[in-house]
């Protein structure tokens, strides 16, 4: 498998074998991600972070990941301080930045920005979120978390809860889980259910899935409860929002009947979707999940930069 020089724009750019390989490499990165080991896999390489939209978590974990494998980081996260404020196009900025660095991580407010940037850039571009579009490293760290907790994903019951309509990252995760052969459950109010085109893609791929409106329908059988944020802006009025948000809020009571081994995930930051009293249960995995972003991004950066991974094994 050859990853050197490749862009990471969408999770769909990877085969199932490639995804599994990336996750395997990420496992080998864990000691260094925790600071228990020091790696120097890519001496002298420089990562340019181009963040046109703020995202503390993604930015910090990429920065940590690059430094943990021995690289250096430059970049910006405040567009007002760059020439973009003076009207420079993304295409021009990319042509300039590629001369300063060996790999680019891009976060942008427009869908398709990363695909375009990858076309203009000769060095690899990693998409750290393009508007409401793709966020492949989030998808990979979600898959990594599930795989490391459950061992494998085939025939495992995975429930996606909350806003399944607007979140493109949820759609990408859905396709990836279908590739892994998981049994999917979609739990959302009618207004926020999966869009028809996503459902028809799943049908075409013979994915196993069920649609529910009530969490308690599946609580006893699921292995993973993946909770997403329900955004106030999606609702015509606050009352409607409160009603829906209340019905899909996870607290210790709503977990009655759950398998002991069931894990709860959330891409964070959460607002009210998961009550803090769940944090102390042995179901909560969202903080672990956030940490997993580091080894996963270490793996991706090493792979696209062509690091020699022999030392990991």
């Amino acid at each position, binding site marked *: 498998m050859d990853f050197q020089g490749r862009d990471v724009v*969408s999770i769909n750019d990877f085969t199932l074998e490639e995804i599994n390989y990336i996750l395997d490499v990420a496992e080998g990165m864990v000691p260094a991600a925790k600071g228990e080991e020091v790696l120097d896999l890519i001496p002298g390489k420089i990562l340019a972070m181009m963040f046109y939209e703020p995202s503390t978590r993604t930015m910090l974990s990429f920065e940590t990941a690059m430094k943990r494998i021995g690289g250096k980081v430059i970049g910006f996260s405040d567009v007002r301080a760059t020439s973009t404020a003076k009207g420079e*196009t*993304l*295409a021009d900025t990319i042509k300039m930045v590629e001369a300063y660095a060996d790999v680019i991580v891009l976060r*942008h*407010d*427009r*869908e*398709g*920005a990363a*695909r*375009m940037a990858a*076309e203009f850039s000769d060095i690899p571009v990693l998409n750290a979120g*393009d*508007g*409401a*579009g*793709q966020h492949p490293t989030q998808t990979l760290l979600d898959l990594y978390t599930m795989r490391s907790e459950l061992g494998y994903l085939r025939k495992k019951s995975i429930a996606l809860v909350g806003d399944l309509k607007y979140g*493109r990252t949820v759609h990408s995760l859905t396709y990836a889980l279908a590739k892994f052969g998981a049994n999917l459950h979609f739990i959302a109010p009618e207004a926020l259910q999966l869009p028809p*085109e996503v459902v028809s893609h799943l049908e075409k791929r013979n994915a196993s899935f069920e649609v529910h409106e009530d969490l308690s329908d599946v609580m006893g059988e699921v292995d993973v409860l993946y909770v997403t944020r329900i955004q106030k802006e999606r609702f015509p009025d606050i009352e409607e929002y409160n009603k829906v948000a209340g019905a899909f809020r996870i607290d210790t009571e709503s977990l009655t009947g759950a398998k002991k081994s069931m894990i709860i995930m959330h891409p964070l930051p959460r607002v009210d979707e998961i009550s803090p009293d769940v944090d102390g249960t042995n179901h909560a995995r969202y903080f672990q999940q956030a940490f997993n972003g580091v080894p996963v991004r270490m793996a991706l950066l090493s792979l696209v930069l062509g690091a020699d991974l022999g030392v990991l094994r």
Partner: protein
Amino acid sequence: MRKELKISAIRNGTVIDHITSGMALKVLHILGLDEDPPTSTVSVIMHVPSRLHSFKDIVKIEDRELKKREPNRIALLSPHATINIIRDGEVAEKHHVRPPREVVDLASCENPNCITNSREPVSTRFKVIRKEPMVLKCVYCGREQDVCIERLE
């Protein structure tokens, strides 16, 4: 004598035949033939019984041969159209339009937040994921969309 010719025989120009039934006016629109002031005399024949597809539309344009990219645009609306160039009252050339596999720089993306709708120096590009009726998928933002004449460039 062929009965279609009774309606409007032309000496020189273009006959677009086998247009998907109901699409003739849209074809005129993307060729700019519905503009004011008019540039050519145009005959439109709609809902003609056809052997291949139960009905078709036909458009006849006098004294105008199609420009280079125009057939590609017609294919977006009507994947089975034939383009007949008439010279001296005879069919001098016949081309079948072909539904493209990719649509490059012909239509804009319906997603207002797509990178192709910003100031970036990038052409639009769509994969054709369904031929009839045509459904396009933006290579950049991933949005699936119908062909809409307002967005043809």
